[in-house]
């Protein structure tokens, strides 16, 4: 510890910290632009100049190491003169037209100019003009003349996003921020540059000129997208969410949010919103009031339960639904005698059901990721599925950790990868077994009998050696691994690998409430009434389906099967915020509120329960789903449906749970069975869910839809495979799976394993196809 005095206050600063850090600790504010606690020190704006006793000139607080006995003055004559001078220089080229600037009212430059600048400008000459650049659909650079060259956006790209998409070209007065030859900024974290920009040079394209900052009310919420549960502030004007920004929570999202969290709000105001309950009468949709709609549903369910049996009623919900909604959904189903409820829509292997110790979770706190020194990431499109968890792993790797990958695709993670084994989906289990066997040899532990016979490859040995050398090992299963047809065995092997290194094993939760849905009992094996899992409900079609926020053709593991089950059903009740394809097969559409219009709770992947309140009133006749389910419960005479608030539901469902006991990744009773089936004819499907197709809300976010990540997916094939087929990148090919086929553009991707074909799921262009895993054939169209 170093003793230092700032403006007469004595502070103990940490060894190696700066004057800025010490001032922060002492509660003394030093004005700054380029300094940001999460970014490297650049010291180029000079705004943080302070007087340090015995130093002849003012020093930048952000770049001056605190030293024992240092006496700092931030308000002395020398400091004030320096601040005033810097401010005057910064304003020479900065337009002084705050009233028409989109940043006005929430601008760091404006605030600091008020506090530290002069009252008027002495500069009468011409100001420089910087032409706007086109850098994509999310960030506007229309006011580039306002840039003060702090380079926060550049450093963010290099250090946090992992890709330097913006840079400062030229120098002196000609210096300007731009991308490489008008290329767009495609990082999935790019929106944070808007927050970081201390002036109005980088602004949010969708938000521009929709509101002034003082017209907005700020309401806290939680991201409904990926498993992290980023803390959000929804900015509301006229009962409409017009902007989303992060709320800092060091343990979860730090001070960042992904572009999906930031820009998906446009989907809340989509014209596709369902605004009134609708019933299909004689093949035509009619808008009705809530009472007849709910009566219709209750009667229908009662009839089917009476005639065919309650087991013919099934409920599917997305894990983007709140805890309260999922809890009431399963309670309703079980109340009428059916256990057919599931949230694991994209899962295909349910053999671990009931054999797992608790809810599959991250196996550690999110913040623990930064402390790990070895990672094994199995089956994950990490950057696109978990943008901010990927960012944390990137920071860990930057700090010396090493990451190894076992996956069926080799997407750039924008970080150094120590070892990787890229194999076809059906070799994944075998590869993990090899790693386990090699690791057992490394650790001189017993090799489990089931895998004793396999041959170990070099890649597996390299991964095993790498893991064995770690002190804090984390083995993480991505969405792909969880959706894999051998998911349970993969998990079991991954767990054993982690156990051998005394490391931690966890699942990267697919959705905001994947853990919460499990805890709510929205699984067929929870509670007294057991039922069918998501796959069984479709394989053996039920007579009635209740869909909570589900779009079967996009959200299910096998959309083809899902659609035929929906079409064949006697009754399909759709609870959705949107009008969608359900118009074709549903009987009732009930408009339910998205996350911004209801109170609720998401339990994130580390088991953190985060509750939020509705930020705005439900649109038109839409109602929170928990209220809809409550009324349905009452209509169907299910006992215990007398809740006044969502908090009461939460209290009933969550209070009894000590979360630590309910989270558990340990699997027992699953047999390892490694078959070495020869590659049959055809190619094995590798499917990702594109980042902006993953849930109903983001599918309707207009600006995100225009990004590269939302482009119609291509078929990806290894170059040698394409040669065999006689096709070239850009050709249209026919992709067939079973009796279904679609036409897509083909693209060469030599990082794919031989014998694999990558076709995205969750997108309308591929919704006609079958399961996310399986054999496909590709031919010239």
């Amino acid at each position, binding site marked *: 510890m170093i003793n230092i005095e700032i403006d007469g206050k004595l502070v103990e600063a940490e060894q190696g910290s700066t004057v800025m850090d010490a001032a922060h600790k002492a509660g003394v504010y030093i004005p700054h632009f380029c300094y940001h606690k999460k970014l490297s020190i650049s010291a180029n704006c000079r705004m943080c100049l302070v007087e340090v006793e015995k130093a002849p000139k003012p020093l930048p607080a952000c770049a001056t190491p605190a030293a024992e006995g240092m006496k700092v003055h931030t308000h002395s004559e020398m400091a004030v003169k320096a601040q005033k001078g810097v401010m005057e220089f910064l304003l020479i080229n900065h337009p002084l037209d705050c009233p028409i600037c989109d940043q006005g009212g929430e601008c760091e430059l404006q605030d600091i100019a008020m506090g530290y600048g002069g009252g008027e400008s002495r500069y009468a000459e011409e100001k420089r003009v910087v032409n706007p650049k086109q850098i994509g659909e999310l960030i506007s650079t229309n006011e580039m003349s306002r840039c003060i060259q702090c380079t926060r956006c550049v450093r963010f790209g*290099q250090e946090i996003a992992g*890709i*330097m*998409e*913006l*840079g*400062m*070209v*030229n*120098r002196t007065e000609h210096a300007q921020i731009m*991308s*490489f*030859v008008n290329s767009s900024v495609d990082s999935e974290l790019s929106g944070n540059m808007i927050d970081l920009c201390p002036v109005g040079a980088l602004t949010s394209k969708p938000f521009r000129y929709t509101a002034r900052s003082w017209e907005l009310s700020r309401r806290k919420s939680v991201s409904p997208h990926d498993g992290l549960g980023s803390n959000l502030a929804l900015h509301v004007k006229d009962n409409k969410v017009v902007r989303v920004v992060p709320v800092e929570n060091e343990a979860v999202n730090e001070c960042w949010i992904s572009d999906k969290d930031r820009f998906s709000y446009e989907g809340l105001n989509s014209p596709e919103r369902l605004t009134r309950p609708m019933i299909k009468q004689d093949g035509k949709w009619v808008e009705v009031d809530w009472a007849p709609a709910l009566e219709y549903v209750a009667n229908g369910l009662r009839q089917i339960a009476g005639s065919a049996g309650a087991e013919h009623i099934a409920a599917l919900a997305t894990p983007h639904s709140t805890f309260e909604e999922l809890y009431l959904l399963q309670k309703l189903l079980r109340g009428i005698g059916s256990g057919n409820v599931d949230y694991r829509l994209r899962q295909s292997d349910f053999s671990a059901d009931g054999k797992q110790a608790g809810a599959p979770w991250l196996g550690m706190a999110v913040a623990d990721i930064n402390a790990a020194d070895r990672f094994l990431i199995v089956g994950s499109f990490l950057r696109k599925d978990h943008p901010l968890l990927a960012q944390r792993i990137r920071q860990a790797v930057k700090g010396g950790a090493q990451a190894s990958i076992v996956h069926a695709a080799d997407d750039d993670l924008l970080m150094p990868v120590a070892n990787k084994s890229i194999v076809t989906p059906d070799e994944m289990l075998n590869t993990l077994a090899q790693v386990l066997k090699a690791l057992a040899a490394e650790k001189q532990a017993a090799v489990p009998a089931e895998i004793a016979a396999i041959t170990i490859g070099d890649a597996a040995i390299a991964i095993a050696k790498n893991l064995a050398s770690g002190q804090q090992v984390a083995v993480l299963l991505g969405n792909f691994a969880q959706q894999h047809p051998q998911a349970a065995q993969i998990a079991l092997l991954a767990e054993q690998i982690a156990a051998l290194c005394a490391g931690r094993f966890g699942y990267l939760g697919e959705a905001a409430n994947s853990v919460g849905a499990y805890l709510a009992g929205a699984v067929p094996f929870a509670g007294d009434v057991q039922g069918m899992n998501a796959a069984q409900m479709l394989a053996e079609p039920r007579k009635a389906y209740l869909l909570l926020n589900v779009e079967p053709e996009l959200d299910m593991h096998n959309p083809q099967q899902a659609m035929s089950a929906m079409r064949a059903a006697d009754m399909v009740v759709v609870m959705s915020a949107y009008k969608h394809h359900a118009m074709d097969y549903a009987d009732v559409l009930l408009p339910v509120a998205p996350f911004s219009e209801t109170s609720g709770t998401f339990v994130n992947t580390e088991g953190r329960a985060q509750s939020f309140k509705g930020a705005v009133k439900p649109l038109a006749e839409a109602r929170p789903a928990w209220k809809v389910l409550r009324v349905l419960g009452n209509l169907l005479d299910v006992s215990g449906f007398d809740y006044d608030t969502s908090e009461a539901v939460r209290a009933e469902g969550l209070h009894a749970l000590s979360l630590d006991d309910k989270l558990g990744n340990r699997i027992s009773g699953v047999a390892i069975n490694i078959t070495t089936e020869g590659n049959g004819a055809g190619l094995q499907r590798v499917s990702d869910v594109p980042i902006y197709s993953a849930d109903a809300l983001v599918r309707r976010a207009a600006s995100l839809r225009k990004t590269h990540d939302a482009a119609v997916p291509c078929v990806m094939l290894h170059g040698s495979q394409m040669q065999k087929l006689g096709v070239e990148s850009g050709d249209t090919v026919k992709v067939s799976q079973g009796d279904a086929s679609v036409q897509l553009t083909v693209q060469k991707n030599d990082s794919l394993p031989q014998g694999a074909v990558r076709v995205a799921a969750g997108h309308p262009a591929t919704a006609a196809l079958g399961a996310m895993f399986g054999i496909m054939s590709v031919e010239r169209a």
Partner: protein
Amino acid sequence: MLSAHIQEQINRELKKYPVDQKQSAVMSALRFVQDEKGWISTDDMSDVADFLGMAKMAVMEVATFYHMYNLKPMGKTTITVCTNLSCTLCGAEETVAHLKTRLGIGLGEVTADGKFGLREGECMGACKDAPLFTINNKRLCGRLSKEKIDQILAELDKS
């Protein structure tokens, strides 16, 4: 694509730096490109970036920061006249004016036959020889007078 010769030169340069810090060779790499092609296009920057495993934008930052890199096609022989303080005090303006008349081009321009290009440069750190210019950033010619300039131009014209 970078030519085999440029790649070879860069590879030799890379031996001077730790293997994980290939980007240290970026300035030399850009110089090799300019030596061969006379200027550095954005495609070249992109190729250099790929070769050194660094961000394209980072290469562009370097290429646009240093004035000795030509970012547009220049002449076979490019003359860069220093117009900073010392040279200006010693007659850089006359040097520029004379070169302009002799070559018939302005600063930043290239003669129609592509033989000569004329640029304005920053201090070369040889003020004792002011006024001065460089030829293709390689040869420094100082204490310039009209006669000396004519002599140098005649010499260059022959080569």
